[in-house]
């Protein structure tokens, strides 16, 4: 992967009160690259992603998208956010709007696109994930997996350059995880630049161009997925991977 640099994070520090959650994070994401961020619970993965689209303001350091600085209070933040799609763990569709209106709200109101054109794109995207029939349904009528696919499409309909995914399958029933991950894999194959936080290790290994392992507020490893999963350099990464192996054995026994 040697495209141009699209996202650059440098010297990022984020504190919540006394607690320093991110303590100097440096990395960059190239165009079309898929970066998976791994790390134990509470290590700051969500915080990192939230800083990357200005939902949290860093205490130090900076983040650039196409060379433009992202800062939470900045004037152009809403403009920049249109280029960064984000999907959260909780499938947070707008409950009072049907699926098509959920998807087209921001394209129409924020990007000032015509309703007709936005709806055409939304329907095309819905067809691709097999949810076209649900376009007039309300979020409460959808399963978790369906809602999460709609949330992904809602972000995609803004035609973003980068997509951030924060544990989008963590709240789903196991049988629904696959349908959501498949959408993400298709997206990666189309060349979308993506930063993904996940606890699905097999998926991470399959989709990642690069794995970043976060622990204790810093990047402990930044390597190719095969290298990270078969031969982690640090003990902390080994221990982290070990917990998953252990969990796996346990679930198999039960």
């Amino acid at each position, binding site marked *: 992967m040697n495209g141009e640099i699209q996202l650059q994070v440098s010297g990022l520090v984020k504190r919540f009160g006394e607690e320093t959650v991110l303590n100097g994070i440096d990395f960059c994401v190239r165009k079309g690259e898929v970066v998976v961020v791994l790390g134990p619970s509470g290590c700051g993965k969500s915080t990192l992603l939230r800083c990357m689209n200005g*939902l949290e303001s860093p205490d130090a350091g900076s983040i650039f998208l196409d060379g433009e600085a992202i800062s939470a209070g900045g004037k152009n933040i809403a403009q920049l*956010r249109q280029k960064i799609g984000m999907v*959260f763990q909780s499938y947070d569709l707008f409950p*009072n709007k049907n699926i098509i209106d959920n998807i087209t709200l921001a394209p129409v109101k924020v990007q000032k696109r015509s309703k007709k054109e936005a709806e055409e794109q939304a329907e095309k995207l819905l067809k691709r994930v097999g949810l076209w029939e649900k376009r007039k349904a309300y979020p409460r009528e959808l399963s978790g997996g369906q809602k999460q696919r709609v949330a992904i499409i809602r972000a995609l309909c803004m035609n973003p350059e980068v997509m951030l995914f924060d544990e989008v399958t963590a709240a789903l029933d196991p049988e629904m995880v696959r349908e959501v991950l498949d959408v993400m894999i298709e997206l990666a194959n189309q060349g979308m630049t993506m930063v993904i936080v996940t606890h699905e290790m097999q998926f991470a290994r399959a989709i990642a161009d690069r794995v970043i392992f976060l622990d204790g507020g810093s990047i402990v490893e930044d390597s190719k997925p095969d290298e990270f999963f078969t031969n982690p350099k640090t003990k902390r990464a080994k221990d982290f991977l070990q917990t998953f192996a252990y969990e796996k054995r346990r679930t198999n026994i039960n």
Partner: protein
Amino acid sequence: MQDSGIKVLFMGKNFLRLLEGLWVTLRISLIAVIISIPLGILFGMFMTLKNPISRAVSRVYLEFIRIMPQLVLLFIAYFGVTRTFGLNLSAEVSAVIVFVLWGTAEMGDLVRGALISIPKHQYDSAAALGMNRIQTFWYVVIPQTMRRLIPLTINLTTRMIKTTSLVVLIGMTEVLKVGKQIIDANRFEYPTAALWIYGVIFLLYFLACWPISMLAKKLEKRWR
């Protein structure tokens, strides 16, 4: 004739006078509600600010209005303020002011409740879609609070209509007062008139509040 109290209703302009009395009540409540809604929305937003001073101020205001019986507030507004500051407030203006103060406090509390009931991730996902604060409020938060707020606001309106009967005590001639006047005028000739008049007033109140309550119920169901 002991049992023809109902006649009193149709004597002269009695029924019309009762309706006029009801209109006084309705007018005060409706004016108060119409002013209270925008003020209450602003007050509700003010109450959700994290600033400790704004919190304390709004808390004190809300508690004060709630603890004070409306009657006392009416007396303060009509007799107290008028006399003390030499302002010549009519009874109706005093009543509207008091009910606006009350309505704003109650409406504000409803709005605050509705606002904090919107999960934080709704704000986050709106922001992540590139909406600014105003767009987030207008397109995402307000429509979701409306579903909750409209039925509650309607209930507040009916409560207000019922409570406005207190204005009789600052000398306004509303429906109950008219009723009493009619009854007093016919005390000897038609001793059973009281039952009829109060019965009709009961009906009038019912007719004024019932459609509003039904509307609230319907909206509540529709928007569940």
